[in-house]
């Protein structure tokens, strides 16, 4: 199973009738069990790209080949939970085939066991994100998409959720695509990083990280981040 993306261009026409290019020459592949990271400045067109990859938007030039009947699990920037259903119902509705054992294991890792009966309106953003993550993983996805899953959380909370995500990704045969503007998240979680330019977005560099996630030391991470920062600086 692999995902092949080759988008030559994607444009929007605004209300005044002007065309704006959002994406240009985006080509990459993602293998099973691999975590790809799209790193780019905010507003560069990452969310547009995700809409194409998930099949919500067909209006682009190029080709996206993915297996038929692909099970997608996605964590959106805003959690997008159903406010009128409890935490547990939100997860079960998306993943009707998940059994109790899998759900309680997930809720345990994400520290949500005590919140099953709560409504999303009663949760903090950090908790709601974790529910969204539980929902995305409960479907046992072939393709997991994380769109800025750590944005607007304070540093400590983000670090904890990041390590929970790392735990949950371990040993899964899932293709994962993480979208972030945070280099730290990118080098801690990713196997292969795609650095995007500002709008219209294209891939500036593809940077593989060979060392497995769990073996990366603080020094490795600093080194990788410095290397990335230099790449960015070189491009102006």
């Amino acid at each position, binding site marked *: 199973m692999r995902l092949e993306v080759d988008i030559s261009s994607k444009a929007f026409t605004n209300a005044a009738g002007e065309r704006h290019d959002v994406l240009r020459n985006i080509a990459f592949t993602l293998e099973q069990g691999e975590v790809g990271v799209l790193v780019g400045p905010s507003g560069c067109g990452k969310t547009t790209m995700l809409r194409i990859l998930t099949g919500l938007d067909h209006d682009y030039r190029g080709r996206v080949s993915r297996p038929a009947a692909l099970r997608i699990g996605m964590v959106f920037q805003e959690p997008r939970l159903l*406010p009128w*259903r409890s935490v547990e119902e939100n997860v079960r509705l998306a993943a009707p085939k998940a059994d109790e054992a899998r759900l309680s294991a997930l809720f345990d890792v994400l520290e949500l066991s005590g919140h099953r009966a709560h409504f999303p309106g009663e949760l903090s953003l950090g908790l709601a994100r974790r529910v969204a993550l539980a929902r995305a993983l409960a479907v046992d996805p072939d393709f997991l998409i994380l769109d800025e899953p750590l944005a607007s959380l304070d540093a400590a909370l983000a670090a904890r959720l990041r390590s929970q995500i790392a735990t949950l990704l371990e040993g899964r045969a899932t293709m994962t695509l993480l979208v972030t503007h945070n280099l730290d998240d990118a080098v801690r979680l990713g196997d292969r990083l795609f650095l995007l330019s500002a709008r219209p977005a294209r891939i500036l560099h593809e940077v593989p990280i060979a060392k497995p996630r769990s073996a990366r030391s603080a020094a490795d991470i600093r080194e990788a981040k410095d290397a990335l920062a230099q790449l960015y600086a070189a491009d102006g």
Partner: protein
Amino acid sequence: MRLLSVAVLIITWWIVSLYVGNTRLPPPSEVLEAMLNEAKSGALFVNLGATLARVALSFVLAMTLGTAIGYWMGRVRLADRLGDPWLILLLNLPALVVIVLAYIWAGLTEAAAIAAIAINKLPTAVVTLREGTRALDPALDEMASIFAFPRGKAFRHVVLPQLAPYVAAAARSGLALIWKIVLVAEYLGRPNGVGFEIGVAFQLFDIPLLLAYSLSFAVVVFAIETALVQPFEARLSRWRPRAA
């Protein structure tokens, strides 16, 4: 508190009746007597029952059709374009015109009465539900589509809860409208019901009887509002965080 306000109303009525005289405004006791007489003969319940049955039928008819058409017009632009002129026409057509035309075209029948009442309520339900459908959150639609919710499930768990407040609003305003119109329809062309009895009392200038029916009707409306409509609304909004 409610009891107190009702008591104030009755006392005011009683004092006013002393001033203006029995023939114009009979005191509460006389109206109560007329009410009991009608209740004893059974006529009160027959007429109230007939009116309630008409209200229920035309309400269900108008809400079902109105919700379906409103949802459709909110989702499909072509349907909205085609339906809009009809909607504006129906919205502004006086209730009396609809009722009279229905009786002329379909005869003085039960079907004509119920259809006429339902047609009066229909356009407001359509407009409310169309607004509700337009306000559906596309982000949640996307979520349901990415997680491959089947159609029925998406409608039940994603769409319906968003429409519920609009359905409740349409039901509430629609019920109020129907309470008002049903009596006119009965007055003009039915041989029973509260509206018919009020017509009879009007022709005989029997003010106690007129007030007896009006008040019984008001009591029934009040009971249905508090016993059915309000608990239903509370249930629909139980997931919302409570206002402090």
